[in-house]
């Protein structure tokens, strides 16, 4: 039976990019469907009725949502270029950090970007606390997963390109040489890695997008007061 594999994504979604990377690293061919989230396709709504978001993976007609769930599915279905270690304790550690990224690192960095005043200050304290853990995790390692890119690197991939977009648009510093030398080295290695480096969304387009988002959010907050 011919394999049918589709990925629903947007040009900018960092979550969808994880899925794209995983499939490309494993050399698995797939069809890409770009969504416009302001005008969601009926297919997207049918395949992901609970969250109505990207990414969605559809394999031989069966849909899956939630990027970390999709990554584990990809890992279990296509065994080449493994993204998770074999050892159960190391696997548990990888799963722990992947969730930590989405539960703690991303929300705090997002709040530094989107909020103002006291909320922004508090978010910065939380973000720096989270980034410290990441810096420690990289000790003695090129990538979070060791010598080669793995699931945790893909999960943290947004840090490599989006953080500096946020820094530029907002005029803040989140990651610096003094406090995060290992994270900066990781960022360079990850950005330049084969396959990964071909798939980054346009930085200029991201700057424009996040600039507009910040302006809209700030205006809404001001109007609400």
């Amino acid at each position, binding site marked *: 039976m011919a394999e049918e594999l589709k990925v629903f994504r947007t040009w900018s979604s960092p979550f969808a990019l994880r899925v794209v990377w995983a499939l490309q690293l494993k050399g698995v061919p797939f069809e890409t469907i770009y969504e416009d989230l302001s005008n969601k396709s009926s297919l997207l709504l049918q395949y992901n009725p609970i969250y109505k978001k990207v990414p969605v993976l559809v394999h031989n007609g069966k849909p899956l949502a939630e990027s970390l*769930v999709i990554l584990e599915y990809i890992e279990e279905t296509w065994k080449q270029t493994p993204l998770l270690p074999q050892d*159960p304790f190391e696997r548990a550690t990888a799963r722990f950090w992947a969730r930590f990224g989405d539960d703690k690192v991303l929300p705090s960095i997002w709040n530094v970007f989107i909020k103002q005043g006291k909320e922004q200050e508090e978010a910065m304290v939380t973000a720096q606390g989270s980034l410290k853990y990441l810096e420690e995790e990289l000790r003695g390692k090129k990538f979070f997963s060791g010598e080669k890119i793995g699931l945790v690197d893909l999960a943290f991939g947004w840090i490599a390109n989006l953080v500096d977009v946020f820094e530029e648009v907002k005029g803040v510093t989140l990651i610096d040489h003094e406090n995060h030398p290992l994270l900066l080295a990781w960022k360079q290695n990850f950005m330049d890695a084969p396959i990964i480096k071909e798939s980054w969304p346009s930085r200029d387009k991201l700057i424009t997008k996040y600039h507009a988002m910040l302006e809209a959010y700030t205006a809404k907050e001001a109007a609400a007061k």
Partner: protein
Amino acid sequence: MAKSEVKLLGAWPSPFVMRARIALNIKAVEYEFLQETLEPKSQLLLQSNPVYKKIPVLIHADKPICESLVIVQYIDDVWTSGPSILPSDPYDRAIHRFWAAYLDDKFYPTLRSIRAAQGEEARKALLEQLAEGIALLEEAFGKCSQGKAFFGGDGIGFLDIAFGCFLGLLRATEKMGGVKLLDEAKTPGLVKWADRFCADGAVKGVMPETEKLIEFAKVFMAKMRGAPAK
């Protein structure tokens, strides 16, 4: 394996701790249960889970594993001679993981907020949200169980554990709020599943009694009201 090789740091009311205990029971793993005081947090907790400082923490041959769903998967990965917790098919595994994440990201935060809800309007809105979630889970149960007893099929699986651990809290919420969340008319599948789950050998000894949970919730709520403003 010596009993002390496997330790679980936890507390009896926690649904997340229950997940780990059920998984260990399914695999017939002997372990030492270390009751965590939480106020103040023990040195062991702070050392073994410095990132979140939360229970459960599984300590296996002195190595700590944190986050309940990570722990359950670890238990499944290590003790392979016992019954499998995750299904064997990758797509089924993904469906179990999807719903488990939904339970932690959406369902539980709503359930927990009901306790602290200010005013009848807020409470009603949260209860409606919860009911919607339960309806989704009823549908998921139909699809996952395929007519069998559990989300995992004939035996308790990953999603049974991820969801079943909240049954105590759900029942306490029903009693305290005078509402019905699992209802024979609306969620017949889940009503029967809940009884089977609670009666299962791996669950019976670790599911707290509803009355005890209600007492605990009252003490907890009183503390929250008395707590200084952040």
